[in-house]
């Protein structure tokens, strides 16, 4: 009787180890692949190669890993709080609202430091996500697809506003940059905000149990003495900050927050204390694969990692949707 319980307790650690072990060779490949070749043999003796490594390749790899992990964590938090498998910051108006905030600060204070821009984006994202949560509360929870659909419509509306403002103000090219997440411009000194996103994802881990309980619903949370409103607030703030940090530094990366948690949940469920590290590692790894593919597929040109992930993500998303219907 205790056998399955014991093996269950060990399985998550094994899965985490597996994903983590896969990350190491991926990161090595990421360090070596790029516009200019970095031959392993001469690497340590060639100061110029070391320079490329320190200024470009290591920051880029770190940026991809941090972004992938943080976005996947933001996605799973969103899914538990909305109690819907098909939401993520890209389908709840969070990213679009962040862009509106960025647009506003670019218009009003073009010279503002990046931290101020990020905070403006985060404030707008927070407001946008809050409105979505109020909206989602009015939709009966058994209407599983209605919630992400309303989110898409809502996000589309915000995007339309942003596009209109951008056209009027002649800032359309900014919008284009924010909308397509890619890492080719990442250099040392231009990505460090992402460590903050990684830190937030780590912070979320300390509230893993609270998020898991909140995912069981308001009534169960209240019954267990959880301050449901606070957990909700903490989650929304985390998700808004992470999304804004990512948009400000690399641009929008849809689907990571959707696909990765769904894949992990299929295998190991939603007990975040077990699954959150795996979600983060898998998000980091998948995004890194997409970024490497983007670098080599049309070498020496680059395909944005967001685009590669979008194709992969859309396919997995469709599979999840159809698979759900087949299961009833």
């Amino acid at each position: 009787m205790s056998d399955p319980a014991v093996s269950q307790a060990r399985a998550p650690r094994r899965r985490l180890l597996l994903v983590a072990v896969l990350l190491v060779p991926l990161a090595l490949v990421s360090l070596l692949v790029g516009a200019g070749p970095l031959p392993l043999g001469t690497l340590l003796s060639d100061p110029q190669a070391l320079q490329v490594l320190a200024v470009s390749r290591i920051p880029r790899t770190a940026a991809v890993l941090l972004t992938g992990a943080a976005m996947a964590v933001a996605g799973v938090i969103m899914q538990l709080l909305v109690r819907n498998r098909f939401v993520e910051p890209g389908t709840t108006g969070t990213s679009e609202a962040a862009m509106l905030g960025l647009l506003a600060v670019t218009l009003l204070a073009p010279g503002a430091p990046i931290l101020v821009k990020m905070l403006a984006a985060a404030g707008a994202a927070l407001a946008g996500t809050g409105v979505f949560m109020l909206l989602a509360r009015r939709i009966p929870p058994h209407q599983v697809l209605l919630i992400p659909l309303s989110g898409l419509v809502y996000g589309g509306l915000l995007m339309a506003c942003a596009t209109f403002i951008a056209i009027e103000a002649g800032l359309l090219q900014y919008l284009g940059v924010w909308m397509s997440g890619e890492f080719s411009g990442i250099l040392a000194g231009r990505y460090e905000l992402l460590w903050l996103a990684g830190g937030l994802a780590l912070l979320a881990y300390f509230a893993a149990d609270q998020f898991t309980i909140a995912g069981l619903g308001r009534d169960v949370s209240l019954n267990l003495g959880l301050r449901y409103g606070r957990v909700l607030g903490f989650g929304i703030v985390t998700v808004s900050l992470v999304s804004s940090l990512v948009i400000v530094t690399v641009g929008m990366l849809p689907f990571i927050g959707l696909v990765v948690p769904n894949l992990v949940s299929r295998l190991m469920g939603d007990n975040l204390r077990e699954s959150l590290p795996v979600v983060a590692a898998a998000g980091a790894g998948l995004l890194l694969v997409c970024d490497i593919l983007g670098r080599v597929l049309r070498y020496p040109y680059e395909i944005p990692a967001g685009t590669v992930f979008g194709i992969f993500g859309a396919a997995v998303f469709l599979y999840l949707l159809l698979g759900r219907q087949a299961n009833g």
Partner: protein
Amino acid sequence: MIQVSNLSFGPAANPILQGIDAEIPAGRVTALIGPNGAGKSTLLKLIARQLTASSGRIRMDGMDLAQTVPAQLACKMAVVAQHLSVASRVRVRDLIGFGRWPHSAGRLGVADHAAIANAVELFDLGDLQTRFLDELSGGQRQRAFIAMAYVQDTDWLLLDEPLNNLDLHHARNLMAQLRHLTELQGRGIVIVVHDLNYAISWSDHVVALRDGKVAFQGPVAAAATAERLSALYQTPVAITRLGGQPFAQYHR
């Protein structure tokens, strides 16, 4: 004792509950009965503070429930809702473990693990403990949630139609466990039931609601008479005795 005084809920023009005065004794099993829509679940949610009354007061063992904080209340009462909608994939054993949250805040000790193992045994969940909630049948899921409430180890246990999805064996087993809890540990238990035979043969006390008001209440033997039950459900109910137990006959 849970003391409900002059409790109302819902819009004043069309209240769902109206001027409820009820006393639910501590250390007893109390059946909350009444027709569909009478307001049983609403009353239970008000006691659980999932809803806020428009007027009136609820005291639990002398504490005014409006003055308590959630964490304090979670050590005092456990609630299982009528509709258990589950959107996330949590394993049965993990769910039961969350029942210890009010006491352990996530750090399960030896005693906590013992309590969880005990609940798994009592509610016959041994084969299901590593399964995900969203892959269980309705009755299995209900047993898992009841087990979670059980390990919460509270003075009060509030169950909304716990027998709803259970088969004969598990329904009877649950009632026996609840009796056990009151008799050996002095817990106060409130259950919403529709099956009159379960109500009259397993509970000590009854509170009957109809149209948002108390129809009658009191010790089962005195209060739950054939006439009152017939009027409550607008259905002829006869009470006979079968093998020494009261038996309600209403099937035909």
